């Protein structure tokens, strides 16, 4: 099964006078796994509901392949969906739940049986066909919901926060399974989550959504290494935001006493990831490195890494993370420590 292109073309959705989506445009390539990532209320479900046909856009259009979905009811859109709270039919057995899309498509009984059992096998629930959803654990219910969403090989698969109800270990297990199933069936997938870690591990591309608008859409590495806005830098992972002043050909970082080259003329902060800062002398020469001193205030043990909290000379806080291999010669609390980073790792951002 090959996926189909999904396209949001300048979609807006208004509830009264608040915009849940504003000029939302997004093209998902055939077979691609794109995640809509954003805080609660940022309009992720609104986007998915418009795509699934549960609500209408105020303006703009949604297309699957070349076909505009305006006026097309849900049942004719041929998309699979996994809902946040499973939405399994409580009065039907697992088998009948998974068979539902096939029954609606008038698939012959023997083929239905084969497809349902294949689907259940794929999610490792072949032995549970006769159970009612109430007799399953949360993870098993989510698997049934997944089997039902893909049993009819839809070219497009939607998932709305479908893992947030599960505990961490189960969530990680299902993340892997969803990736594997996505590879197998090749459906164009739009996945919704508020969990940035989940978005980064699972997606080909992530669209960071804020207040109904897409702030940035990129692959996970780019999103993490080169955030386009201050919002994205803060939302994805952990970062140090240091105030800067624009100067000719870049920005002046007063707190560190250095100049970072940049094309941006409205640079107001730099984003510097904690693991990109090291103690002086540890970054191999060859790149443009800047060194500075900071006072260590605290060190926190995090398992595989330790986190140092420094204070810069103008009073700004700076977090540095390093592997435990260097833990044997940890600096003392209160000591002035020489630190360094590559200038190219500092991302210059405007203040909005």
């Amino acid at each position, binding site marked *: 099964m090959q996926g189909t292109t999904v396209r949001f073309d300048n979609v807006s959705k208004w509830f009264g006078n608040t915009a849940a989506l504003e000029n939302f445009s997004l093209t998902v390539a055939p077979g691609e796994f794109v995640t809509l990532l954003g805080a609660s209320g940022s309009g992720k479900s609104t986007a998915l509901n418009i795509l699934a*046909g*549960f609500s209408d856009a105020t303006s703009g259009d949604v297309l699957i392949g070349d076909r505009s979905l305006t006026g097309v009811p849900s*049942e004719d859109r041929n*998309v699979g969906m996994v809902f946040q*709270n499973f939405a399994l039919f409580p*009065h039907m057995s697992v088998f009948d739940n998974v068979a539902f899309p096939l029954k*609606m498509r008038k698939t012959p009984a023997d083929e239905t049986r084969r497809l349902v059992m294949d689907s259940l096998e794929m999610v490792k629930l072949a032995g549970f066909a006769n159970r009612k959803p109430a007799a399953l654990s949360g993870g098993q219910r989510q698997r049934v919901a997944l089997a039902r969403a893909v049993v009819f090989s839809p070219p497009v698969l939607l998932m709305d926060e479908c893992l947030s109800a599960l505990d961490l270990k189960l969530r990680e297990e299902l993340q892997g399974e969803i990736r594997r199933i996505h590879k197998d069936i090749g459906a164009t997938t739009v996945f919704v989550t508020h969990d940035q870690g989940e978005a980064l591990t699972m997606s080909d591309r992530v669209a960071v959504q804020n207040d109904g608008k897409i702030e940035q859409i990129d692959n996970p590495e780019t999103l993490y290494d080169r955030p386009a806005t201050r919002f994205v830098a803060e939302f994805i992972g952990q970062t140090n935001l240091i105030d800067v002043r624009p100067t000719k050909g870049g920005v002046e970082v007063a707190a560190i006493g250095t100049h970072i080259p940049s094309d941006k003329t409205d640079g107001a902060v730099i984003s510097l990831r904690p693991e990109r800062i090291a103690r002086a002398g540890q970054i191999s020469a060859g790149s443009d490195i800047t060194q500075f001193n900071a006072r260590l205030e605290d060190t926190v043990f995090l398992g595989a890494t330790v986190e140092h909290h420094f204070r810069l000379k103008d009073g700004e806080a700076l977090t540095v993370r390093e592997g435990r291999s260097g833990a044997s010669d940890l600096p003392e609390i209160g000591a002035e420590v020489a630190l360094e980073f590559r200038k190219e790792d500092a991302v210059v951002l405007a203040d909005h």
Partner: protein
Amino acid sequence: MKSLRNSPGSVLMTLFFILTILFLFFPIMVILPMSFSAGETLQFPPKSWGLRWYREYFNDDLWRASTFRSLRIALMASILSTAAGTLAAVGLDRTRKSLVPVFTGLFLAPAIIPNVIIALGVFIMAVWTGLTSSEPLLVMVHAMLGLPFVLLIVGAALRQQDPSLENAARVFGAGPVQAFVTATLPPLTPAIISSLIFAFFISFDELIFALFVMGGKVTLPVRIWSDLQHFINPTIASVSTIFIIATTLAMTTAEILRRRSANRNA
């Protein structure tokens, strides 16, 4: 715990509890033995025992006619009431939030406005339209009386239900009606059956409206009422006993179903 159980307060509570139960069950405890009396008049306690008054009830054409009339009216009223109430509950679930209290108030009004007042209105309407002694009219009136209970029972079950069930049915290929029938309705079955039973008995033991509008066509409660006014006949005790047992069984079933539907969707 032990000291608490024997404290004067808890002894008083137990006494209060027993007295309350006795008070509530007193009518039943009097009527039940009286119905098995073999005597000519209502006696408590009966001097001799027998099924005489049960035979009397089952063999009397007029008693039988009023019983069947009541059963017929209650059956139709409960079906009408449950159908309308279920649709009302579903409709309310999809109504703009600001309008919900208005409609809820309207639907619940029959349970709050004193029946005598509504009955007066219905009586005037029946006279105007010439619908006195009309079973269909009483069916509609009884259906109206049951509506608030149906709305509350089915509405509660619906609020427990995951609203995305119907969306799920739609996106997997069901049209709007099919989605409603295959996804939304079946999980509500226990609540709907429970509503049917409630609505049935609301109609079956309703007296005031039947007195106002039914004229010559008496229902069972009207028959009991008029018998009580004229002569105290032990048949009433046997009818009441049957009535009490049937009602208790059905209401217990309804309550079990209602609880089951509440638990299942929780």
